[in-house]
């Protein structure tokens, strides 16, 4: 049998989402962003949400997220994506609005905006990429940088007396009555990607059902910032990030549920 005999629509088992644009991504090889973009694009397509969706891109490595998924987008100022998303969804309650933010954007400069959007229970999805470092600006300390972790602004490792403690913001978010589904995922193996996709699907379903804010953290690698090969970065994440940022659901409820198990 020739190869060309195999390439037929009926033999197709996997293809790129039609919503993922045919443009080269600016992300470093090994970065987790591309995988999460793919999962999001697949879900928006599979759930038939393209016309309903408005994405809000952050400042950071994913500032150009709007170049990669074929939906309407708004680019927010650093940390302000949850406020921008609030503005969109409040005057367009029939839209599916999500923010896509990194740890510097969400857990440092934008702490007030994320806390209050989640506390109001805005019907939005928040995708939070936590790789413990500022990627775009060249590998500086993030609020989520682990103790002892070397970055360009903690060249001798994060010293908690000097720099404070790594911030488990997702645990804080899970305490807020406005949130419905709060989970921590990863995308370093095919199994993890499938689990993450399932979690994001559930989060989107919750938003569409107007259950409150859904929040999906994805513990990620930044092999360039961490100065590692992609494979080493995955191992380092498993050995160091996962024990401090344990994976799994933190809350599965509806907004305002005081008995929600956190």
């Amino acid at each position, binding site marked *: 049998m020739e190869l060309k005999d195999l390439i037929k629509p009926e033999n197709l088992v996997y293809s790129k989402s039609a919503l993922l644009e045919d443009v080269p991504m600016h992300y470093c090889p090994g970065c987790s962003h591309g995988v999460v973009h793919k999962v999001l694009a697949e879900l928006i397509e599979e759930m038939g949400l393209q016309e309903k969706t408005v994405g809000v891109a952050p400042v950071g490595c994913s500032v150009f997220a709007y170049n990669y998924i074929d939906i309407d987008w708004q680019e927010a100022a650093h940390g302000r994506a949850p406020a921008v998303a609030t503005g969109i969804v409040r005057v367009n309650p029939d839209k599916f609005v999500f923010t896509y933010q990194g740890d510097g954007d969400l857990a440092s400069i934008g702490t*007030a905006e994320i806390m209050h959007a989640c506390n109001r229970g805005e019907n939005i999805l928040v995708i939070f990429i936590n790789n413990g470092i500022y990627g775009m600006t060249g590998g500086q300390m993030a609020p989520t940088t682990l103790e002892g972790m070397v970055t360009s602004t903690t060249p001798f490792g994060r010293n908690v007396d000097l720099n404070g403690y790594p911030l488990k913001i997702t645990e804080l978010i899970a305490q807020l009555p406005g949130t419905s589904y709060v989970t921590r995922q990863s995308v370093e193996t095919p199994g993890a990607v499938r689990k993450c996709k399932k979690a994001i699907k559930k989060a989107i379903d919750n938003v569409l059902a107007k259950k409150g804010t859904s929040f999906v953290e994805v513990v990620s690698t930044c092999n360039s910032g961490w100065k590692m090969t992609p494979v080493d970065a995955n191992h380092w994440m498993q050995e160091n990030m996962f024990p401090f940022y344990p994976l799994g659901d933190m809350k599965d409820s509806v907004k305002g549920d005081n008995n929600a198990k956190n």
Partner: protein
Amino acid sequence: MAEYKLMKGNEVLAEAAIRCGCDGYFGYPITPQSEVMETLMARQPWTETGMVVLQAESEVAAINMVYGAAGSGKKVMTSSSSPGISLMSEGISYIAGAELPCLIVNVQRGGPGLGTIQPSQADYFQTVKGGGHGDYRLIVLAPSSVQEMNDFVGLGFELAFKYRNPAMILTDGALGQMMEKVKLSDYQPRWTKEEIEEKWGSWATTGKTATRKKNIVTSLEMDPGRMEQNNIRFQKKFSEIEENEVRYEAIQCDDAEYILVAFGTSSRVCQKSVELARAKGLKVGLLRPITLYPFPKKAIKELARKVKGFLSVEMSAGQMVEDIKLAVYEAGSTVRVNHFGRMGGIIPTPEEVVEALEEKFSWELSYGVKRSY
């Protein structure tokens, strides 16, 4: 039948927003303008017109909510007072950079810093010259009565959407708190989804359909060549605004030898000063800029060729006076331009203004001719 009411300036801003078909208001309390949101919350426009009102966690969040909602083609506004506008300035720059239409109201108070809650006009530079970063302009309307507080809400939105640029009503605590008779505007329906799609579908994030490309609302452009092109486009727009949108009022300027230039609350004071001066035999007129940007340069230039002096009367250390001087310079005139102002929340009296005019132009008044610098 027109509806007349006795209302505070701040209340009128809220009422006018509802009536002009505004889709949303996002704000944060600050004296002396908190009545804007209080009036809206009490009126519950969401039950009447569907307008959304939301108290944000900060001015920073409020202006970014405006960005998001404006980016989807909706008619949205915010209001604040001086320190709050400083916090919003980041967002205002992004809104200008992303070319989004919206209405911002600054009910000024005395500064700098926390300053005072009394009226001031010391945010002229911030409003007219920038405030946020980058080469952008706001369309700035300066009401001088509660009636104009009403009228400029609709006008502000009209100009903002015409040029896809943020518009600002620059007023102050006196006009915000003052009660006057006002003729309220008629109700205009909010735009329907179809109308928004038709009017603003080429740029607003209304949801990507099969028939159009995705819309991206952003102020980011990494390629400096393209970023320069964006700036050239903005500047062209500002030239058009300067060409078409200048508004001012000239009171007794025709035979005037001295011109008071004042906007907002200080222009109200100056109306009385003109009367007092004329009673003394001084030929004084008042030029009241209604748009601070675009500034009524041409009117100043024409007057510069025939009058003996300009006195800029501002509730500040002298900010607009620089724009008057520029216009006079451009006219090739050497007529003197002086400033009189009170600061820190003090409103000048009409008598003080006349005294200042007599003192600052004593040479001209003694000799009856203009004096060059």
